């Protein structure tokens, strides 16, 4: 039984390779889910919103000599999969990549140089935060496909109940409002949180902190990345600003933003991808309940963002065909918009970084939720593309959580973070 199955598999492979003979085959690695790849379907299996697959079918019809295979792996395992197969020479031609991974990929010579015409298009057509995300060592390494940033999401009803008609504009206002939005059980546990911080993985903890740091006029590293600046006055103040909410009882380390849709959290700092969950949670009450505003600032309005960009493997045998497809998908005008922009805005529900798409998909991007994030793009600082970004972010996350738990002061935590981070910077930038 097993042997015949193996035989069958071998025969199938041979047949498959013959049928594809003469075609240029491109492998396209993404971290997207089933919906984003296969499209959103109705109960009868008809495509309602196009997915990546439908665009690729369109492209293959236009270019019969090209065949594109999508290899999707969930986000959590995506980088691991790329690393493991790459070491054995099993590569994809096209990758969608998280901006923070870019540095190591570029330094190790994994990414193909971007053709000149693509570079100039990226520089002229895309929002600054996204261009920064795709830029490593002053060069652009791919076409941005998705940009995300953070804003204050609040529960209008809870605010009104407490007598607030407007969300806080400055951080001090937020700190003053939050305790009034907090309710306690008789035993002292919190029944309703005035504020909840994102947590659970590195970016969740670090990104909102970086937003406050930028808002306070600081930055995490020197521009040449030779030193970590987290012990600066601005950086310590930014973390102390977070700690004020723990000290005045408006939040605690057990607070969870995932309880926002149940009406137990009044305010949080969130990203665009949470929209569907909020709609599900509040149903008919959604529009009357959910409000979005810029993150309350310390010294100046600022938020932080991250980018996904599309790039080509330098070891690909079909680089030209790969870039041709990328041009068609992400740059070419398809009637006032780009195809990737359509996929992002309609299917995935995230912000396309192309200015033209932002203007075109008004309807999708102008709802009460996403529009606030789009408006904030002008105040968005791209998280720095630094070597060992993930390692550095994890260190900072752990130290911030230490401070949240009151085990270290803001200064101690950031001092400890700086010590560890400087060691890494010394390794990679000196």
């Amino acid at each position: 039984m097993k042997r015949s199955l193996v035989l069958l598999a071998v025969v199938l492979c041979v047949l498959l390779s013959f049928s594809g003979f003469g075609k240029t085959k491109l492998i396209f690695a993404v971290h997207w889910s089933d919906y984003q790849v296969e499209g959103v379907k109705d109960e009868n299996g008809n495509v309602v919103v196009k997915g990546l697959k439908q665009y690729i079918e369109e492209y293959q019809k236009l270019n019969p000599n090209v065949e594109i295979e999508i290899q999707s792996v969930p986000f959590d395992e995506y980088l691991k999969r790329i690393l493991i197969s790459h070491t054995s020479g099993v590569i994809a031609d096209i990758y969608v990549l998280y901006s923070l991974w870019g540095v190591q990929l570029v330094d190790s010579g994994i990414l193909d140089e971007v053709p000149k015409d693509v570079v100039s298009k990226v520089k002229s057509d895309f929002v600054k935060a996204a261009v920064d995300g795709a830029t490593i060592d002053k060069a652009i390494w791919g076409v941005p496909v998705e940009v995300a940033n953070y804003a204050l999401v609040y529960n209008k009803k809870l605010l009104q109940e407490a007598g607030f008609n407007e969300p806080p504009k400055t951080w001090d206002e937020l700190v003053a409002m939050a305790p009034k939005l907090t309710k306690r059980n008789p035993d002292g546990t919190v029944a309703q949180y005035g504020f909840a911080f994102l947590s659970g993985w590195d970016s969740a903890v670090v990104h909102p902190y970086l937003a406050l740091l930028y808002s306070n006029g600081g930055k995490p590293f020197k521009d040449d990345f030779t030193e970590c600046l987290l012990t600066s006055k601005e950086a310590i103040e930014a973390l102390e600003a977070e700690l004020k909410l723990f000290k005045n009882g408006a939040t605690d380390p057990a607070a969870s933003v995932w309880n926002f849709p149940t009406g137990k959290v009044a305010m949080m700092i969130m990203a665009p991808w949470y929209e569907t969950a909020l709609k599900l949670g509040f149903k008919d009450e959604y529009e009357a309940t959910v409000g979005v505003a810029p993150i309350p600032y310390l010294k100046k309005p600022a938020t932080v963002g991250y980018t996904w960009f599309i790039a080509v493997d330098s070891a690909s045998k079909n680089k030209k065909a790969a870039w041709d497809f990328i041009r068609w998908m992400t740059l070419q005008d398809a009637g006032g918009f780009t195809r990737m922009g359509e996929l992002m805005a309609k299917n995935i529900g995230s912000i396309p970084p192309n200015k033209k798409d932002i203007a075109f998909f008004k309807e999708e991007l102008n709802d009460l939720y996403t529009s606030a994030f789009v408006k904030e793009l002008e105040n968005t600082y791209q998280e720095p593309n630094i070597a060992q970004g993930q390692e550095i972010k994890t260190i900072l996350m752990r130290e911030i959580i230490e401070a949240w738990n009151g085990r270290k002061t803001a200064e101690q935590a950031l001092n400890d973070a700086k010590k560890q981070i400087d060691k890494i910077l010394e390794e990679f930038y000196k």
Partner: protein
Amino acid sequence: MAGLSETKGPVRRKKLKTNTGAGYAFLAPALLFYSIFFVYPVVFSLIVSTKRWNMLVPLSRARSVGFSHYSYLLSDQVFLGVLRNTLIYALATVSLTIVIALILAVLINNAKLSVLWRFIYFAPVVTPQVAIGTIWGYLYRPNNGLFNSILRLFGMKPVYWLTDPNVALFSIIITAVWAGIGGSMLIITAGLKNIPQDYYDAAKIDGAGPFRQFFYITVPLLSPTLLFLTATGFIGAWQVFDLPFTMGRNAPARSVMTVSWYVYETAFQSLRMGRASAGAFLLFCVIFGFTLLILWLFRRGGIKGYE
């Protein structure tokens, strides 16, 4: 009783005839497998552990650093801390799991509906992580979680089960024991089925109650099984990854980080495969030494499951 002499003091059996040909013939498939799928990867990783390798450049271009990864880890507070966490986790889960599983297996063995009970106790093994994580998340919730509701009934302060660094490891151990009982019970049950009923009949005639039967027949005759569970339990527990990784993400200060988690993070998030491999080899040395210690202790207790 000769076959059980493995468990009963001085050996009374004849020495087996040496039969090298047959021995190696029966071992051939396993040895062939290991020479490819174990020896090669381990030698490969040993080489990697002496390099600075991000998995992106070819290994041949990675810089050699000698044994500096090893000396780094051995003097690194973080690594020593995760070793300590893992030791606590291993000692607690293995001992609790085996004791509880042994008692329950004996209680269920001849009980009515034993098939049903055995299935229910085994259910955590087949229940997917998502469901286990969700339920234990409910139970450990600080606000309206079940455990804190019980504490409140007794007028006690609520406990932050998964975010208090002094408690989180303990909470994860409870879940791990809960999840591990079923598998151990299964193996103990298979062992119980090997104990001849005659012994119990004889004991009853001698007037031995259930407790004496348990300590004088069941436990000694199960000792090869218990040895197996202890040894493999520790080997597995030293490498634990899933539960702390999924439940302990919000616990501060790496208070529940285990060695495998450290190896994983170092390899695939920090892209330091060399240091991660060195960590894996240090873990191997610890487990190897620990296993020898366990076997020695069992042997001192008169059990020759391993010779």
